[in-house]
Each structure stands twice: as C-alpha cells, then as structure tokens.
C-alpha cells in the first residue's frame, strides 16, 4: 500500500525528563522520567496514523519530538531521507516548513492580539514566502479549505470573537498554509463540543486527500481514531504497546490495555481489575493493571509479538488476548 519510503520516521526515540537540580530535586533524589522510551514510528505519504493513549502516556511528548519542539535524548529522526535529529539553521527551517503541529486547546493556540489574517499569514512571513498579496491569497485559500467561509467575514476577527471550533479551524489553516508534508494533530478535538468534532475530523480526512498530507492524529479516544486513521499506535507509559491497521486493532486487540480501551469506548461501563501495586515494578509496565498478569510478566519484559504481518503487540500473551473476544461487544465485520 505504501511502497515508497516513509515521509517521516523515528527510530528508537527516547526522551528523558529529569528533575532540576534544585532543592526539591535534591531532597526527592534525582528523579528521571522516560516519557518516551524507545519508540519506532513511520509516517507514510497520505497516511493518517492515530496515536492513542491516556494522559501521561507520553503521546504528546512524542508528537513534540517529531516536530523538534522537544529535544531528543536519544534516537534518530529522518525526514524525506534526510537525518534531522540535530537539525539547526537552514535544515531546521526546512523541517519547520515541512512538519507542522496543531494543539489541543483552541483557546491557547492563537495569539490573542493577532487577527485571523495575521495569524494565518505569519508562517509565510517568517519564511519570506510571496508578496503581501500572495500571502493573503494563500491564507484565504487555506481558510476556505478548512471551511471558514465566507473568508472575508473572518480575516479581521480576533480570537476572542471566535468560537472554539472556529479557532481550531484557524489553527489548522495556519499550520497548513506552508503546505507541510506532515501534520502532528495533538488532540485537536478533545476540547471541542461534540457537534463540532465531526467537522474537524472531516477536515483532517479532506486535507489528507487534497494535499497528500501525512497526519499523526494524537487522541485518547479510540472511536475518533478509528474514524480518521489507517493505522493506529497504542501508547502506554512511554512505549508503543500495540500497533497495526486500525480496523484490525479495534476488532482484534492483541494487548490487554487496548482491549480495555475498546471495552470502555462503548456505552457500557468497562469492568477493570483493581490496580495491584505489588506489580508496580514488574518488567511489563502494564502488569499492575492487567487482568491477565502472570509471573512471567513480573520477571521478563514482553517481546514484540507479530499477530499478523503489520499488527504487533508488546505482550507475552498477545496471541491469547487477540483470540479471546472483547467483553460486552460484538464487533462484526470491520470495513
């Protein structure tokens, strides 16, 4: 399906956060958090990949690493065949043009002092692209693409005059105005009203189709991940614990965590085992919350299990998990 090499790929990405060397750091001991811990990720042209995980799983940090907003502790990033891990100067500027990001909180992602016009043309001005008139034209075109029409009515508006949904559209237009190859969308709908969410999801699909854009769609909601994505990565405490084609992962989850997520993403309450604190330091990071945890999970870190060619799970019992049905739901034919 994707014969070319990926647009953006990361190998063994690690990001460690350490407590500062101030008083609390000294008293609490040198605390280190591996927010992202050895993640491999590929984004192909025109592909939407969903990154699903709970808060604190490291999904936002991973997205920021891919945009070079966050510095890698170790690992390797490649964009269009060029290593960009330590990009600076001109190379960095090129990365900035090709990789863009939109954020979760539409009330924070626009400068309160900038009009829509100024916000959307800003990236063009930074890269000295086109004349004033060209910039306005390109901004108008992109605002049209995200459905903020009639555009003339919005160009002079300030953020506080716009609704959350409208702001998010402006943020998307600004990210798209440089015609990037990759868009990192960090929970773009989680703060929007339900009735607006679908239109933002549809914009994602349309942008992909129209511009051949690759999108990393970061979310905590499996249902919206299923709606937009071709492939899904499930992240838990810094690691990708399951990955594969979206329909396959949703219909046949091969990691106990994904399975719980699937069960909770319905209109029924998911019954979960109580957290077993005795297993907090187990080799498998999910063991303390896992209904299936065994002695093996405590002693040995789980290897990657290939359920099918493109569907993998980081669980000792992936095969058994995949074969057992999801509780409380019958998922008949996927696509």
């Amino acid at each position, binding site marked *: 399906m994707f014969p070319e090499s990926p647009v953006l790929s990361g190998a063994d990405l690690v990001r460690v956060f350490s407590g500062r060397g101030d008083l609390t750091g000294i008293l609490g001991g040198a605390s280190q958090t591996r927010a992202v811990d050895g993640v491999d990720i590929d984004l192909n042209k025109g592909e939407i990949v969903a990154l699903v995980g709970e808060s604190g799983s490291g999904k936002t940090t991973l997205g920021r690493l891919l945009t070079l907003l966050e510095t890698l502790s170790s690992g390797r990033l490649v964009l269009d065949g060029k290593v960009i891990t330590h990009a600076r100067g001109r190379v960095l500027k090129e990365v900035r043009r090709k990789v*863009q990001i939109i954020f979760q909180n539409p*009330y*924070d992602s626009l400068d309160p002092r900038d009009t829509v016009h100024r916000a959307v043309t*800003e*990236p063009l001005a930074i890269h000295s692209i086109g004349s004033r008139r060209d910039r306005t034209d390109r901004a108008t075109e992109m605002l049209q693409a995200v459905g903020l029409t009639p555009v003339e009515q919005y160009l002079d508006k300030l953020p506080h005059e716009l609704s959350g949904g409208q702001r998010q559209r402006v943020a998307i237009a600004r990210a798209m105005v440089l015609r990037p190859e990759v868009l990192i969308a960090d929970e773009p709908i989680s703060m929007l009203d339900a009735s607006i969410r679908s239109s933002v999801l549809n914009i994602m699909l349309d942008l992909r189709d129209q511009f051949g854009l690759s999108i990393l769609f970061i979310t905590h909601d499996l249902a919206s991940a299923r709606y937009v994505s071709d492939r899904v990565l499930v992240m838990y405490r810094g690691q990708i614990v399951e990955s594969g084609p979206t329909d396959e992962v949703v219909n046949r989850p091969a990691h106990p965590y994904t399975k719980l997520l699937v069960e909770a993403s319905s209109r029924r309450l998911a019954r979960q085992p109580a957290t077993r604190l005795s297993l907090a330091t187990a080799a498998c990071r999910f063991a303390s919350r896992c209904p299936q945890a065994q002695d093996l999970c405590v002693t040995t870190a789980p290897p990657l299990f290939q359920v099918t060619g493109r569907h993998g799970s980081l669980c000792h019992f992936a095969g058994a998990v995949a074969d057992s049905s999801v509780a409380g739901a019958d998922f008949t034919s996927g696509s």
Partner: protein
Amino acid sequence: MAIDEVIRAKSQTPTPVVSSAANGWINRAAIVVVALLVVVAVAAPMLQLPSPTGFSDQPLAPPSAGHVMGTDQFGRDILSRIVWGTRSALLVAVGSAGISVVVGVALGSIAGYAGGWIDDILSRTFDVFLVVPAFFLLVLMAALFGPSMPVVMAVIGLTTWPSSARIMRSQTLTYRTRAFVDAARAAGGGPLYLLARHIVPNAIAPVITNGTVTMGQAILIEAGLSYLGLGDPSSISWGRMIFDGQKYLDGAAWMSIFPGVAMLVTVLALNLAGDSFIGALLGPRRRRMSRQR
C-alpha cells in the same frame, strides 16, 4: 457550558463584564490627573503666567490675585514655577522608568526564555542590582559627574530595572509554554522573533504597571536629591522649591506647601493610574491591527 468556561478561564486574562468598583472612579480620576499634568507640562510656555525665573519686587508675597500661590524669597511666582517644574518632574519620571522598563524587559525576557545558565547568571545579576542603594549611588554619581538631569535619570533607571526584569522573567516563563508561542516556533520563528512578536507584547502589561510606580519613585528620588542640593541646578524642581522654602516655613509656608502638594498628587496619580493605563493602551480589543493588502 462548563468545559468551555473552564478553558476560557484558564487560558485568557479575564475581561470583566462590568468593571469593578475598585477600578472605577478613582482610577479614572487618576488618569485624568496624569493627562492634565502632561498637558500642563507641554503647554507651560503658552500659559499666561509670569516668568518662573523672573525676579520681582514682591519677595515672599502671600497668595493673592496677582500671584495665586504667592512668591518665593526672590519674588518669583510659585504657580509658574510649579507649572514649569512639572516638566522636569515628568521628564525624570518618564526617562527613569523608560530606562528601567527597557533594560528590565530586555534582560528579563532573555533570562526567562533562555533558561539554564544564562538565566542563572542574569537572575543573580538582578539580585545584585536590587540591593544597590539607589540614593547613595546617586549622591556618589552627582559628586563624580556633577548634578545633571541625564545622570539622575540614568542612576534611577539603572537601580530600578531589576524589579522590571524579575516581573518580565516570570511573565516570560509562563508565556513561553503557551501553545501560540509553540505554534510560531513550529512555523520557524527564532527566539528573538518569538520574544519580540509574541511573548513581550502579551507579557509586558504588569511591567508597565510597575513602571508607573517607578515613575512616582523617580520623582520622589529626584526631589530628595534636589532637596540635598544635588539636583540639576539649571532645572526648576519641586524638590528644590521645598528645600528653598524650608528657611521661610514660619512666615511663608506656601513656598513649600504648594510644591509638596503638587508632588503628592502627581505620585499618587501615577501609582493609581498604572493598571488602567494598561487596559486602555494594551488590551487586545484596542489592538486590532489594520490589515494591509
């Protein structure tokens, strides 16, 4: 409603629907006073007043129709001297606070944005300058370079900037993590661009408020210097006037009282007007940029 409200509350500076009582008539009165002072300072030559330096044959005359606030020991008109003194008072205020804000904003924003060792060095520098006693430094400088207006402004500015810098630093720390700053960074903006275009314009308001307080301080410090005879001798200064009147307090108290009141009103108005200035000058609503095509 809730989710939206919470988000709004968290990420926006609140804009009160109805301005609170505290922000009401007192502040408005203060702004009017400050505006009047500026007008008076600018219009001083145009006012139909006796010359502030012209001697007359009526020394130590009490307030009368001819001299509303009386005259001093050389027969100079007090009202006229107070009016002309507004110029030096405001000049010192604006000059000192300007230096303080410019230096403070520059160093504070760099410290806050850069972090790490740059922040450590700069922050320690703020601390050192914060404990330098302005007044004694002034006395020293006046003795070294001779008393002049630029020296006075420079010294006041250079001893008050650390408070501006500290405020700017902490403001920058909160703004640099805002999503709109990240968005501009992801679009290719470098550190100086981000500071100049997004962080400083949004974060500067409390520094300016602090600056108006500095203005009041500057006027008081300048008066103190003049009182000690270390002010610029070529300028008309309220502090100098109070000093001159000291000897005649018994029979001609107006010589000191009127400049004293002028100073009190000015400093008070500057302090009270601070907050409202910001709302009027820098609120996003007023800053709708006209779009050039």
